[in-house]
């Protein structure tokens, strides 16, 4: 049975391209996709020394806002995320779990001293959203360079891959038993 995806727009973040993001995600997964706003207490996740937000804590808080027990919830934020051992993360998810979170903070061209590029930001946001949802559907990193599940630790790598699952990963998302 197709699994629904809920995009949680965190703490008032609602970019103009939200509908396009929803459509982009819908192209990759088989279930219905919808977006709605969610407010989280972010202070508990803020690390003053790093001026970043602890992705794991935010994700734990997000899961309390799930509307359907079978749906996957994806938090979308512009806050800079980290996990304790790494300098930053584009996003985080629970492997084969109910939720994931993605930040656009380091997907923006301005972060790298380049002019704003909304089209490119949308493209990157779709890829990272589908990538983290892929983990929530139980997928691990894929060796296929073009597959959206290919590991990307810097933004140029995000640009190099496509926003689609390769045939093998797509089959695993549709039929989880095949993994």
């Amino acid at each position, binding site marked *: 049975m197709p699994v629904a995806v809920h995009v949680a727009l965190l703490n008032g973040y609602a970019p103009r391209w939200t509908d396009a993001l929803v459509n982009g995600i819908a192209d990759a997964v088989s279930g219905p996709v919808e977006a709605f706003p969610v407010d989280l207490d972010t202070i508990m996740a803020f690390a003053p020394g*790093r001026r970043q937000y*602890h*992705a*794991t804590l935010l994700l734990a808080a997000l899961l309390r806002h799930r509307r359907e027990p079978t749906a996957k919830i994806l938090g979308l934020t512009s806050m800079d995320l*980290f*996990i*304790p*051992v*790494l*300098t*930053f*993360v584009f996003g*985080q*998810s*629970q*492997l084969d779990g109910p939720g994931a979170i993605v930040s656009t903070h380091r997907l923006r061209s301005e972060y790298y001293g380049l002019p704003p590029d909304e089209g490119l930001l949308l493209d990157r946001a779709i890829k990272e959203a589908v990538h983290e949802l892929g*983990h929530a559907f139980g997928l*691990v*990193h894929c060796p296929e360079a073009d597959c959206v599940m290919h*590991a990307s*630790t*810097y933004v140029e790598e995000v640009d190099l891959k496509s926003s689609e699952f390769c045939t093998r990963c797509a089959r695993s998302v549709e039929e989880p038993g095949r993994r």
Partner: protein
Amino acid sequence: MTTRKILIVDDELSVRGSLEEWFREDGFHVETAEDGNRAIAKMEAGPYDIVLLDLKMPGMDGITVQRRVREIDPGAAIIILTAYASVETAVEALKLGAFDYITKPVDPDDLSNLVRNALRQKELAEENLRLKEKVSELSRSAPIIGESPKMRRVLDTIRTVAETDSTVVIRGESGTGKELIARSIHAQSKRRFFPIVAVNAGSIPETLLESELFGHEKGAFTGAQYRRKGKIELAHGGTLFLDEIGDVTPKMQIDLLRVLETKRFSRLGGNQEVSSDFRLVCATHKNLEQMVSEGAFREDLYYRINVFGIEVPPLRERPEDILELARFFVEKYARAMGKPLRSIAPAAEDVLVRYRWPGNVRELENAIERAMVIGQGSAIEPGDLPLHVESGGGTEPAARSLAAVEKDHIERVLQELDGNVTRAAKTLGIDRATLYNKLKRYGIRR
């Protein structure tokens, strides 16, 4: 592909948790440990491909844990993680064999590259080990059979010289197994992971031998269409076995002496010097000392090669080894021919021991191979052996013409094969037409 395993050792729950998730998403099987004791317990139940180890932990410190981890599994790649960068501890960790050392928080790209490189290095090390084992298996020389005091002395000398890098001269009659001894020296030496390259100087004309040993450049002579490496170059790192060194011409002796002294030479038609690090083992059935005194072999080359000498005794001087060798060959050919193992009847044993074996071990091997082909019973009988032993204990009289021996032999083979010319020709190693001609010439009736 097998799932790679990683062990994360860190006292902070949030670090363990986040790294666990990060590596699980990368397809790893992840285990975590919050202190040194638990890490060691996990290692003992391992193995792991990678160990990510925090240096600062309560109780057992990271360096001690690292030491124990290395003892338990030297193959695991250890990556040191620490919140406090200190050159001293980094140096100590690396000295103890850590793959690398990184400070928290880590750039995800750096961690990803580090883990990828550690895995690659581990895979290469494992591949290297597998290939070494394969080479070792392929280069294992055939066993040298013999319990006689003379052969034991030879085996002891092989063990002694194998460890050195000295040149060895193996002397012995034809068929005594000189090449087997050279291969055994190579197989027991530190050069065993490199090739042993054999050249028979006696069977190659001088001009060809030069190109065979030194190689040639393209166009060095008519027909030299490509550059070709010589045997000396191919033996780089390993052993060059030069058989029948007593047959090398005076000019080649000079060239060889120069290569042995400098380990450098030029390919034919080339100006560039090439170097090769090889160990020379040579063999001869000739009396080199006599050749030196007659001026047929250079004295300086003689002294250069005669560092260690191994004298392989002829088979007639070690009769106590004959039956053991015979049984070894029976087993070898039974396996090769897919035939049941045969015993050797006492009368046949008597023939084998009393025969003088002018062709040495090679002749014995051929005799047993033939007996295994033609014999039918469960034991090898004297009639299966192509040997004539006088009842008085000597060999057959030497004063016979080759033609007489050939006639006798053809008659015996035909008799054993019930006059079947096709099978007889096959056994004798000649074609049917040749055998018919010989039958006609010797007046043999089938």
